[in-house]
């Protein structure tokens, strides 16, 4: 029993971090696809961006990518900040116009 535990709880390597990021990514996808509230969708997008960042930094820690990976992650954070600001301004505008932020009620493009 102790042996089994020791085998499964090994020193965290690259794969461990990648698996965490994969699960985080799928949770983000889940939020983006299924939540009606636009703000929830935005939060899902943040999760996806974070999972990508974990990947970048994990690669920068464990592979040849080195500091370039951290650099890219830094730019992802910058862009996420810009995205959040603009997206929330858009959400406020949408709310003002449609009096709802449920994505499925906003279907002007319906064919």
């Amino acid at each position: 029993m102790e042996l089994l535990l020791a085998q499964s709880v090994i020193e965290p390597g690259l794969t461990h971090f990648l698996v965490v990021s994969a699960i985080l990514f799928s949770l983000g996808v889940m939020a983006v696809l299924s939540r009606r509230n636009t703000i929830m969708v935005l939060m899902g997008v943040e999760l996806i961006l974070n999972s990508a960042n974990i990947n970048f930094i994990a690669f920068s820690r464990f592979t040849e990518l080195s500091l370039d990976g951290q650099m890219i992650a830094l730019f992802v954070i910058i862009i996420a900040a810009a995205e959040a600001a603009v997206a929330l301004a858009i959400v406020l505008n949408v709310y003002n116009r449609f009096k709802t932020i449920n994505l499925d009620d906003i279907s002007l493009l319906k064919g």
Partner: protein
Amino acid sequence: MFTQLPLIILLLPLLAFILLIFFGKRLPRQGDWLATGLMTLTLFLSLILLVVKLGTQPAETISSSFNWAIVGSQVIGFGIMIDNLAAVMLVVVTLVSTLVHYFSMGYMKDDTRYSRYFAYLGLFSFSMLGIVLTNNILLMYVFWELVGVSSYLLIGHWYEKKTASNAANKAFIVNRIGDFGMFVGIMILFLSYSTFAFEAIFESISAGQLPFGSEGWLTAAGILIFCGAIGKSAQFPLHVWLPDAMEGPTPVSALIHAATMVAAGVYLVARVFPMLTADALLVIAYIGAITALIAATIAITQFDIKKVLAYSTISQLGYMIMALGVGAYTAGFMHLVTHAAFKAGLFLGAGSVIYGMHAALHKLHNHHTDAQDIRNMGGLKSKMPLTYWTFLIFTLAISGIPLTSGFLSKDEILAGTLAFSTLNGHWLLPLTGFLVAGLTAFYMFRLLILTFHGKPANDQVYSGVSESPKVMTIPLIILAGLSLFFFYSFNPFGATSGWFYGAIERPESMVPLILQPAAYPVFYEAVSSVHTLAMILSIIIAGGGVVFALAVYHWKKVSADALAKRAGLLYTGSVNKWYFDEFYDAAFVNGTHGLMKMLRWFDENIIDGIVNGSALITKVLSRISGWIDNNVVDGLVNGTATTANKAGGLLSHVQTGKVQTYLVYVIFSFLVLFVLFL
């Protein structure tokens, strides 16, 4: 000296733009003094630069650059190159721009977007100076597009007028067609030499490297880059935007369509001249000749004062391009400089006339008479003496009458084409050149006579016209002075002895020997042997044009209407501008409409049919499966049934308008691709 000063010259107009666009409304007098002052300073700095350059290092090309961006292994430089060409061009641009600034202070006095207008003038001057100063063809392309944008803003300055905003769009779009070709040309050069710098490209070519190892590609690159000049310099077949662009304010027409933007194309050809093969130059020469002829024939029959000037500009630009094409490099560039002075003067003079007419019509509350139609004018000579006398000097200059600057440069161009035909046998080029010289003299004097001589068309309006304020007439006087011969050469009958010919020399051709045009000494000898003949012919022909115009419009010996009837089809063709717009409308606009209709039919009948059919089938299938599911009561199967049902529902109306439904498709396709390529 030669690194900081050009940068200051380049950045001062940008400073004016930035200050005016943000603080213009708050400054006293909306900041016109600021823009004009900065522009005047730029002019003085440019003059200093020119004098120092010619005085200390007349033969050098001074270039300095620093790395702008490093993309992979490619280094894109940002640099400044000052040779005599650039130094002269700098003075031309800043001079005209400064005078236009002064003139605009009078002309645009009561405009609602006064400060905005001066801000755009600054932006335009900045981008134009950028084209002149850069040592790098990519950067030139960037400034080229900036010129496009700022000219768009200026032409569309009165955007409440539908015609003005349409004209701005047209200018922008037509220019884009030419720029596309230019961009392809730049990319060919970049792929072959992996550099954008002019000097490096020329060095590689002279070292015998050809793009993709073939001579045809070099010719193609030259012609493609010339496409940019076709757009900006309004050459055939992209000349249609320039006459429409007359919807902009008249000082803008003087700036953009006389001295700077349209001259950018000529400047571009002069810049890349060393890499042009003989074939490319021949194409350039013929395009120029066709443009000159077409535009001159249209100008004869127009009645709008600005339209006549617009077509004459196109025609003169054709001259310059033709001169460069035949190898009369200095003559072509000199015509650019002299033309900049007298055409800017003509436009500003026309602006002064329109300003006077407008004020008179406004006083009478007459808003349906066109202030720009020369049939409504006449006899303005005594009312606007300063405008008249300066206008007369400009008209003499553009017609190529001796003692003017226009005579010097035009004479050299005609001699160049004549020499070219004696060397290569292309006799159509000098023939067109001389014909256009005669036509130019005719239509310019027609304009002058109809506007300033004869009886006034409307006495009421006539009595209300008065001379324009000083701020408008002084630029005219300065430009009139610059249209005289002694600024360019002390010998009124030959430009070759003047400083200009000493300063601007035709650069060595860098292309392989068999592709080169006739070498400069050979060409020069041919020019000097035909020079006297060309001069005599050009005087006779220009004189003939003037006399004919006087006979028709002043002495009324020949009736204009009878002439028009006699000319028949030619006359209707000319009045309708040879139907270029109609042709483009039919060929491209309607063609696109037709294609659109076809695609729509295809969409409605075939694609929708497939979609609806598949939707129907899926619907039926999902019904059946739903029925089965309902009967086989089982939670798990029920789940699949709803999924199938939902899938059917999704297919039956794919366009739900719901973002998340689309996202489901996106993620699904992403996963499919992921599996496929993993």
